[in-house]
């Protein structure tokens, strides 16, 4: 008889795999903190980091200016990159699970374009006297409108079954429409053009601790919900009808998971601008390496997504140094070819 311990083995996150991913993540964060025009010494940076731990005092020879660069510029930027990457990757994995579509990601379903429009409206309203208007809630509202439109439009034909192709096409159409509205608003309000563009092209350059604290709660809620629902996502892989006969309410799971993923994606996009393909590259890489189960894909996507975007930020900062590439350019450059590869193999991943 099959040993009990071996029965559920394939769907467990192997401790070894998780430790390996975490080690990779820490290594990438370390590199991200060390790389930059200021040329900080590795030993000194490590000493400064350890010195910040409670009850530990370690001498380091970093100057006041270098410490400011480390704590106020590189650290929040690196941490924000990791948080955004983790959130977009886990949200992408969740969208793929609930929509049963390997090509679904926040960008394709109009979430990012919706958030972009929401953020643009917020920036315009700020310029018109609502100076204290926060950007994140409007970005979130835009994201919800984006995904609701994509989902609703893909559902109008063939009531019982919505195909992957229809969903992706609906997402592309909604994203194009929302982007068109955003562009129109931008061009008719040239005074805010610079601020909107700065947001669209990625804002990790100007990230500070306050930006990070503003979005962190949304992201944490998103992660927790997706981690809780990772078994439900496994059940959803057999389709709505079968999931329902197994005891799950697919509508409720979809509503909760999409809300959580949208919350996280909206928070990420509102903090960092539009960053493409993270939600596809990372979950599919995890899937190819670690298997089908969302019990593996969600936690590993969180860790690998963080590592990936932190690494992409290092590339963005270094390839044309002292200038910088927008981080979205780097992820799209890597993501484009990868996306084509996923398209070619999507028959297997579906």
């Amino acid at each position, binding site marked *: 008889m099959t040993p009990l311990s071996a029965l*559920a083995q394939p*769907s467990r996150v192997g401790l070894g795999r998780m430790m390996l991913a975490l080690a990779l993540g820490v290594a990438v964060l370390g590199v991200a903190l060390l790389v930059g025009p200021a040329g900080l010494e590795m030993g000194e940076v490590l000493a400064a980091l350890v010195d910040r731990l409670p009850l530990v005092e370690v001498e380091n020879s970093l100057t006041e200016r270098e410490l400011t660069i480390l704590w106020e510029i590189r650290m929040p930027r690196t941490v924000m990159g990791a948080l955004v990457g983790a959130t977009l990757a886990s949200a992408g994995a969740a969208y793929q699970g609930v929509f049963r579509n390997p090509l679904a990601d926040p960008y394709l379903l109009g979430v990012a374009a919706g958030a972009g429009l929401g953020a643009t409206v917020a920036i315009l309203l700020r310029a018109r006297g609502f100076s204290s208007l926060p950007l994140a809630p409007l970005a979130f509202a835009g994201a919800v409108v984006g995904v609701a439109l994509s989902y609703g439009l893909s559902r109008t034909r063939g009531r019982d079954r919505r195909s992957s192709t229809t969903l992706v096409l609906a997402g592309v159409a909604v994203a194009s429409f929302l982007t068109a509205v955003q562009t129109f608003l931008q061009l008719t309000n040239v005074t805010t053009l610079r601020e909107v563009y700065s947001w669209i092209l990625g804002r990790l350059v100007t990230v500070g601790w306050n930006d990070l604290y503003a979005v962190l709660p949304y992201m944490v809620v998103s992660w927790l919900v997706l981690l*809780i629902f990772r078994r439900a996502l496994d059940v959803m*892989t057999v389709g709505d009808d079968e*999931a329902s006969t197994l005891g799950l309410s697919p509508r409720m799971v979809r509503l909760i998971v999409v809300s959580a993923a949208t919350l996280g994606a909206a928070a990420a996009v509102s903090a960092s601008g539009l960053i493409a393909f993270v939600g596809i590259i990372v979950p599919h890489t995890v*899937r190819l390496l670690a298997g089908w189960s969302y019990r593996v894909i969600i936690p590993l996507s969180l860790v690998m997504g963080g590592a990936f975007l932190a690494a992409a930020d290092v590339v963005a900062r270094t390839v044309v140094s002292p200038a910088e590439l927008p981080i979205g350019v780097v992820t799209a450059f890597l993501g484009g070819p990868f996306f084509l590869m996923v398209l070619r193999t999507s028959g297997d991943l579906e």
Partner: protein
Amino acid sequence: MTRLLIRDVSVILGETLVVDAVNLSVEEGEWLGLVGPNGAGKTTLLRAIIGAARMETGEVVYGGQNLARLGARQRARLMAVVPQNPVVSWGMGVADYVLLGRTAHIGWLGREIRTDLEIAQRSLKALSLENLSHRRLDELSGGELQRAVLARALTQDAPLLILDEPTSSLDIGHGQQMMEMVDRLRHEKRLTVISALHDLTLAAQFCDRLVMMSGGKAILDGPPRSVITERSLRDHYGAEVRIISGPEFGVVVIPLRAEGVSDARDAKPAAGRL
């Protein structure tokens, strides 16, 4: 005795009345077979019973509870379903697939505990799937896959088993084995079974009672010999058949050609022609 009552159930799909005021009662431990021509409403009636098709009128009551008022989780603890065309998830292993059957018994924050694993293990054993437990679903043959789906349903530990055309994608041997397994399991676990079946001979051999549906209505209801008759198959299937019955094989349905068999020559073994 826990009885399943189907009372005045009607289902409209689009503008078509697909199930028309069907009334049925199924006793505990009974195997009820739904037969009927294509489009008779068998699958839609099953979908109404499991809550997947919206009923225009009527109710389905099990053990005094109206199933429509129960949530998915409570319903899944009462009835397990073997779909006609199960969705096969890419890369999923047989053991994990069978464990999905425990979903209704695991809380939102929970995971499989020892009891769940033991029940899944018993299901794998009951369906001789132990050696395949780590194989991927997409690597299984049609017969093995159907056994895995039945094992998942068994793992739900529900007293009602609903099967929609369980032998439709199987050859005669695997179809027969599948029906034997269901029959053995229902006796061992005292399951109540409702199945839509295309193969009338198998339906007559295994079911305690058959209901013939036609045009959305339950036309005939009774023991297989009284439902599967030359006249009922002519009237509702438009088929000319001969029925042979005997105590050792039940009822056998033989289709007849209008002008006799055109090629009456004995079959010859295939020659070595390339």
